[in-house]
């Protein structure tokens, strides 16, 4: 019998320990599938963040470097410059990338570093127990905003992809989601495209992925998908925000 579905080689044979309904496990799998498809497993080094994805090294079947909270883009820069033939990606939460690490991501993009950034936006600090992040929605209840985020004192949701797309050094910026089969496929295409851009030395790319955190949002996995679609997507619309090389791709099927 022909095997038509299997675990990617780029994932270890261990079960994920994320909460039920968490988007991180889906995103890990999509990244691993893309690395398998492109045949780059032996050239890849991932940078793990501090956040719920801190255990990336437990799941990915290739080398991982753990960076301090917020520092993956700077660490990736050093790594890529030292080993330009390797494929370097960072995997970062919204706390890691859009709060404590805001400076690093802006400057890595501005220098047009030839790296891939996978940015998991779940509108909260998941790992520390669901505190307000800069990406938290107005009125969203978190453990540090028990009566909902008040934009007067706590600011507005930070649209990182929109912000980065204004930076000249950035080549490809896209926002996707993992709420449906269609969006999973689109996310996978975006991840693959980001890797291809890096292989072709096209510079900085970032895939922002809207991802559910049912536990800290206080919803069931099912309801968290509904909330993501209804509330998150209206603040963070999906789509390509920037693509310097649109229409110039040599691959057969034009990806997202």
């Amino acid at each position: 019998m022909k095997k038509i579905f299997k675990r990617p080689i780029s994932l270890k044979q261990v079960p994920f320990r994320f909460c039920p309904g968490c988007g991180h496990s889906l995103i890990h799998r999509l990244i691993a599938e893309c690395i398998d498809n492109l045949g780059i497993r032996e050239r890849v080094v991932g940078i793990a963040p501090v956040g719920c994805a801190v255990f990336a090294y437990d799941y990915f079947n290739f080398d991982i470097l753990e960076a301090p909270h917020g520092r993956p883009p700077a660490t990736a820069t050093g790594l890529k410059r030292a080993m330009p033939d390797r494929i370097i990606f960072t995997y970062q939460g919204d706390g890691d990338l859009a709060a404590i690490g805001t400076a690093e991501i802006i400057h890595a993009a501005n220098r047009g570093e030839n790296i891939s950034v996978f940015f998991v936006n779940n509108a909260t600090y998941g790992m520390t127990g669901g505190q307000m992040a800069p990406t938290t929605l107005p009125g969203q209840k978190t453990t540090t905003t028990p009566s909902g985020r008040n934009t007067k004192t706590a600011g507005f949701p930070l649209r990182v992809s929109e912000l980065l797309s204004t930076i000249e050094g950035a080549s490809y910026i896209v926002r996707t989601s993992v709420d449906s089969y269609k969006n999973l496929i689109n996310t996978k295409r975006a991840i693959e495209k980001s890797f291809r851009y890096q292989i072709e030395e096209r510079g900085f790319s970032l895939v922002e992925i809207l991802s559910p955190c049912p536990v800290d949002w206080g919803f069931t996995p099912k309801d968290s998908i509904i909330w993501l679609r209804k509330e998150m997507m209206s603040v963070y619309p999906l789509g390509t925000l920037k693509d310097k090389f649109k229409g110039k791709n040599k691959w057969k099927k034009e990806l997202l």
Partner: protein
Amino acid sequence: MARILAVSGNEAVAEALRQVNPDVCAAYPITPQTELMQRFASFVSDGIVDTELILVESEHSAMSTCIGASAGGGRVVTATSSQGLALMWEMLYIASGLRLPIVMPVVNRSLSAPINIHCDHSDAMGARDSGWIQLWSENAQEAYDNTLQAFRIAEHMDIRLPVIVCMDGFIIGHSIQRIEYLEDEEVKKFVGEFKPLNPLLDIDNPKSYGPLILPDLYHEYKRAQHEVMTKVKDIVLDVAEEFEKIGGRRYGLFEAYRLDDAETALVILNSAAGTSKDVIDEFRERGIMAGLLKPRLFRPFPYEEVANALKHLKAICVLDRADSFGGYGPLFMEVSSALYQVRERPRMINKIYGLGGRDYLPQHAEQVLSELVEIAKTDKVEIIKEYIGVRE
């Protein structure tokens, strides 16, 4: 009447902050401190305190925010742990250099790499030279009491310095202990109204904080900081005396446990002192004259007082829950410096224990005390610094 409850260390300190009702709080989460600021955030959200709560994007910004608010003339707090304190390093020196009376509970946790969320004292020891006063706490009660006293010490008109209050992450921060809270009114009276000193925005007396000072006066500025530190001990004792009147609990520069007639002793900070005291009692029952010294005020370090308390002993072991790689443990270095100044002094050894949350067990205290008994007998030290509780 004191309220007696069972709460975690984080909850106890959050309650102290509620009772103090500071003007500004900068909050940013990090394990194992997170719960502390979270509880305080809910007080703000419920309108129980009047504090301006700022949810900042990193500890770097948290301390910068505190510096701004404190220079503006407010009573200011934040709390952190581990990497968070490390990320504040630059600002710590600025807060103390500007003589800003910020109060910061630090729920002790190890430092990366490798990343680890559990208790040791590497974080606060890294801030040792930053010009902050440091108070250390064995349990939730001491953390609560020290936090209240920290405001009085920091804001004392003769010193005006920032204060760190340490307690052990998870072991104390997260575990439920018995606590006696003071009444809100008593706390309010004890800490008093905040009195700004040279605040900004005093229109008739414009001033600058932190201007450039080159070799002409920088040296003098730093000497002034050294001098003000020499006044801290007395103020800590005065505040403790006043606190005892309302709280009934007595605090000093350190706790001396069964030390007067002891021949051997442990010197140890925070929660592990509690475990050690039980073992010392057992040794005493067996007729072995053991004792313990638990520092409370670590910065400024009370050298003469510690030397006086320990000089009559035959052998002591300083246990450090942090290492200074390539050197002795940080507490050992202080105690050695203190004792060097006295002519007759005990033999000393240094044990590094409990890094990254490794349990400190009664048998570790037993092992060390037994070694001390041997040293006292033979007057010989084989190895000065050694790790204990290591998996082989």
